[in-house]
C-alpha cells in the first residue's frame, strides 16, 4: 500500500487532538471528564509517535505507542480507583472540591 498522506497534516491532527484534550482537562471540573481528556491527550501523543515512525519507516514510533498504551492502562486503572475513593469520601466528582491537599 503506497500512501501519499501528508504527514504534516497528520501531525497537525495530533496537535489538534492534543489541544482538545488539554482544553478538556482545563475546562471540565468533573473528574471523569478530566480523565477522559487525559486519554485524549495520550492518544494524540501516540498518534504523533506513529506518524513520526511512519515518516522514517522505523518501528520505534509504534513501539512507543505500545508503551503509551501500557502507561495509559496503568494510569486509568489507578486514576479510576482514586476517583472512586474520592467520590466515596467527598460525594462529588468535582475536582475543585478535592482541594484539601494544598499546602
Amino acid at each position: 500500500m503506497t500512501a501519499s498522506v501528508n504527514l504534516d497534516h497528520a501531525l497537525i491532527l495530533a496537535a489538534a487532538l492534543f489541544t482538545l484534550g488539554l482544553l478538556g482537562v482545563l475546562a471540565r471540573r468533573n473528574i471523569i471528564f478530566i480523565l477522559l481528556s487525559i486519554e485524549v491527550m495520550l492518544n494524540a501523543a501516540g498518534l504523533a509517535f506513529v506518524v513520526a515512525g511512519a515518516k522514517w519507516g522505523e518501528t520505534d514510533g509504534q513501539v512507543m505507542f505500545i508503551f503509551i498504551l501500557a502507561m495509559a492502562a496503568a494510569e486509568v486503572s489507578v486514576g479510576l480507583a482514586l476517583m472512586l475513593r474520592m467520590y466515596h469520601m467527598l460525594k462529588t466528582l468535582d475536582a475543585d472540591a478535592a482541594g484539601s491537599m494544598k499546602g
Partner: protein
Amino acid sequence: MNAVFYLSAFVAVIATIMVITRVNAVHALLYFIVSLLSVAVIFFVLGAPFIAALEVIIYAGAIMVLFVFVIMLLNIGSEAAEKEKQLLSPQAWTGPASLAAVLLGELIYVLVKGGSGAGGIGIIGPRQVGVSLLTKYVIGVELASMLLLAGLVGAYHLGRRYRKERRRTA
C-alpha cells in the same frame, strides 16, 4: 487514501469536541470511542495496521470498558448531568480555550515551518514491531510490565481499602 485520512481526521476532531463538551459521561464515552476508531483508521492509513488493531482492541475496547464500569459503579443519574450543565458555564471555557488555542497555534506554526512534507509510507507490520519490541526495547517492555503490575497493585489496594471502609461504616 487521502480522502479516507481527511474524512477520519474530521470525524476524530468532531468526536473529540463532542467528548469534551458532553454533560453526560456515557455520551462522552461513546463519542470518545468514535474518536478512537477514527484514529485507528488513520493508523491504518499510515501503514501501522498492528497499532490500528491495538487501538481498537485495547483503547476502544478494554480501557473504555473500564470507564463504563466505573461510571456504572458510581451510579450517577440524570441529576448528575443537570449539575454538570450548571458547572459548564460559557465563561469557564474562555481561559482554557484561549490557552489551548495559543498552544495549537504554536504547534501548527512549528509543523508548518518544519515542513517535512509527505513521505513514502511503507507498511510496518506486527512482525517488525514485535522484533524491535523484544530486542531493542526489551528493557522498556520489562519496565512497562512493572508499571502495569504497579498499576494493578495500586488499583487493587485503593479499591480494597475503600471496600473495608464502607463495611466499617455500614
